[in-house]
C-alpha cells in the first residue's frame, strides 16, 4: 500500500512520531497483519477503523508489545519505528517494558485496579520508581486534571476506583495512562462500553489531549473517527486499505473498498 496523495495538506507542520513499516504479525498460524504500513504524526489523533476482525486492535497492541504476554504470537517482519530516537519497538533487543513505559494504553472496558483512585493513577509512577509523596501528589493531581476528573474526585481520592461511574472509570484509566507522561497513548475502542454522555466526554477529552500527547485510537464507530481524528486508516482482512487525512477519507476516499465501508454498504 502507498500513502495516498492529498496527505500533504493535513501533514503540514506535523512531525512524524512513529512509522509502521511493512509489519507482518501472526497469531500462531493466522496471518493477522499483512505488510501494514502507516505513519503516526506527533500531537495528532490517528484513528484505525474497519470491520470486526480486520486487525485494527492487533495493530494497536503491537505498539505496546501486548502480544508478548501470550504464547504463539509472532512479529514476523517489518517494524514500528519510534521517533526521534529511531527505535524499532518490535526489535528483539528492545525490552517490551521499556516500550510500555514510553507508550501507554487505555482499554476497551474501563479496568481500574481494585485500589484507591489515588493509587490507580500513582501506579504508573510507582513502577517508574517514584516514591516521594509530594511529587506523587503533584503528578496524580495533574494527571487527574488532564483527564478532566479532578473536580469530581479531588475530595475522595482514597475511595475505590470501582466506585466511580463507567465514564469516570474510563477517565481514571486515561489519567493512569497520562500520569507517566507517555509519548503515545493507545486507545482500544475506549467508549464501546460507555453510554452516549460518557462517550461525548471521553471524545472531548481525547481532542484536548493531543496538545500533550500523540494519540492512536481504534474505533468501530466511524462517526467517532470522523469527529475526533486528524488521520484515519481503514483496515480490512489484516491489510491497510487506505490511510489519509480524516476529512479526505470520509468525504472523498480514493479506494472503492473504503467508500463502501464508509457509506455503510459493507461492514
Amino acid at each position: 500500500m502507498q500513502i495516498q496523495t492529498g496527505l500533504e495538506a493535513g501533514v503540514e507542520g506535523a512531525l512524524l512520531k512513529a512509522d509502521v513499516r511493512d509489519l507482518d504479525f501472526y497469531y500462531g498460524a493466522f496471518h493477522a497483519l499483512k505488510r501494514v504500513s502507516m505513519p503516526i504524526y506527533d500531537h495528532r489523533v490517528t484513528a484505525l477503523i474497519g470491520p470486526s476482525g480486520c486487525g485494527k486492535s492487533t495493530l494497536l497492541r503491537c505498539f505496546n508489545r501486548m502480544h508478548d504476554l501470550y504464547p504463539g504470537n509472532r512479529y514476523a517482519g517489518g517494524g514500528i519505528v519510534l521517533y526521534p530516537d529511531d527505535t524499532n519497538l518490535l526489535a528483539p533487543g528492545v525490552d517490551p517494558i521499556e516500550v510500555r513505559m514510553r507508550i501507554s494504553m487505555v482499554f476497551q472496558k474501563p479496568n481500574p485496579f481494585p485500589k484507591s483512585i489515588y493509587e490507580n493513577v500513582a501506579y504508573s509512577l510507582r513502577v517508574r520508581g517514584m516514591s516521594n509523596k509530594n511529587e506523587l501528589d503533584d503528578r496524580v493531581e495533574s494527571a487527574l486534571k488532564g483527564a478532566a476528573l479532578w473536580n469530581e474526585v479531588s475530595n475522595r481520592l482514597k475511595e475505590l476506583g470501582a466506585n466511580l461511574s463507567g465514564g469516570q472509570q474510563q477517565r481514571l484509566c486515561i489519567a493512569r495512562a497520562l500520569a507517566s507522561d507517555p509519548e503515545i497513548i493507545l486507545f482500544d475502542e475506549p467508549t464501546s462500553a460507555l453510554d452516549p454522555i460518557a462517550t461525548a466526554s471521553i471524545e472531548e477529552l481525547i481532542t484536548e489531549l493531543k496538545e500533550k500527547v500523540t494519540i492512536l485510537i481504534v474505533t468501530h464507530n466511524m462517526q467517532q473517527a470522523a469527529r475526533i481524528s486528524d488521520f484515519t486508516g481503514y483496515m480490512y482482512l489484516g491489510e491497510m486499505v487506505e490511510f489519509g487525512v480524516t476529512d479526505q477519507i470520509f468525504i472523498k476516499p480514493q479506494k472503492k473498498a473504503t467508500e463502501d465501508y464508509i457509506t455503510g454498504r459493507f461492514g
Partner: protein
Amino acid sequence: MLKPADLAAIRAIITRAKRWDLFFSLLGILSLMVGVLTFTVLFVDMAIQGVPRLSMDFFTSFPSRRAEHAGILSAWVGTVLVMLVTALSAVPLGVAAGVYLEEYAPKNWITDIIEINISNLAGIPSIVYGLLALGLFVYYFGFGQSVLSAGLTLALLILPVIIVATREAIRAIPQSIHEGSYACGATTWQTVSDHILPYSSAGILTGVIIGMARAIGETAPIITIGALTFIAFLPTAPFSGDPPAGLFDWIFAPFTVMPIQMFNWTSRPEAAFSINAAAAGFVLVFMTLAMNGLAIYVRYRLRKNIKW
C-alpha cells in the same frame, strides 16, 4: 387470535413441564439431607456423649491410665505445633508454585506434565505420604519422630490443595487487570506483588484453610512416621529455649496429635475412655469448624475491597 382452548393447552404444558422442577428440587433436598443429617446426627451424638466430659482439667491434663484423669493437653498442643509447621512450610511453597505456574511458566509440555501431576498428587492416599515421610524426613534427613517430620508430611499432603487454590484464585482475576498492570510498564514481579497476590489473597487463604482443615484430622501419615500414642510431657514452648539453637527445640520434640489421641482412646475397652474420645472428637470438630469460620470471615473482609 388466542382462543381460550389454546390458553388452557399452554397452561397444561407448563404445569407438566414444571413437574420436573418439583421433582428435581425434592431430589436435591433429599441429597442435601443425606449429607447434612448424617453429619448432624454424628456431631450431636458425639456432643451429647462428650460435652459433659469437657472441663478445664480435660484441656490441661496429660493422658492417663485412669479415664477420669486423662486429658488432651499433649494432643492439642501437638496439633497446634504440627499445624504451625505445616502452615509455615506449605503456604510459601504452595503459593510460590501456584504463582510460578500461572504467571511465569512457559506454556509447553513440561509445564503440562507438572500440572497434571499436581492434580494427581491431591488424589494420593495420605498413608503413601506417610511412608514417603518415614523414609525421607524421619530417617534420611534424620528429623526423627518429631513435630518437624509430622508438619512437613502434612505440608506435602496439602501442598496440591494450596497450589490448585492459588491458581484458581489467580485465574479469577480478570485479564483486563492483568493487561492494565503490564500496560503501565510493570514487570512480571511487580504485577504479581502489586496486583496478583493482593487480589487473589482471599481465594488463596480459603484454599490454605481448607487444606489445613484436612491436615488437622489426618491420622494415618502421622502414625506412619511414628507419632507417640501416649505422651505425658510437652515440647518446649516454641522460640523459648536458649538462642540460637534452643529456639527450635520444639520442632524436634516427640509429640502426639488430636486424632491419634482419639484413636488411642477408642481402642481401649473401658467405656469411660470412649467418652473421652467423644469429648476429644468434639474439640477436634470444633477446631475444624473454627478454622472454616475464620476462612469465611477473612474471605469476606478481603473481598469487600475488591471489585472489578
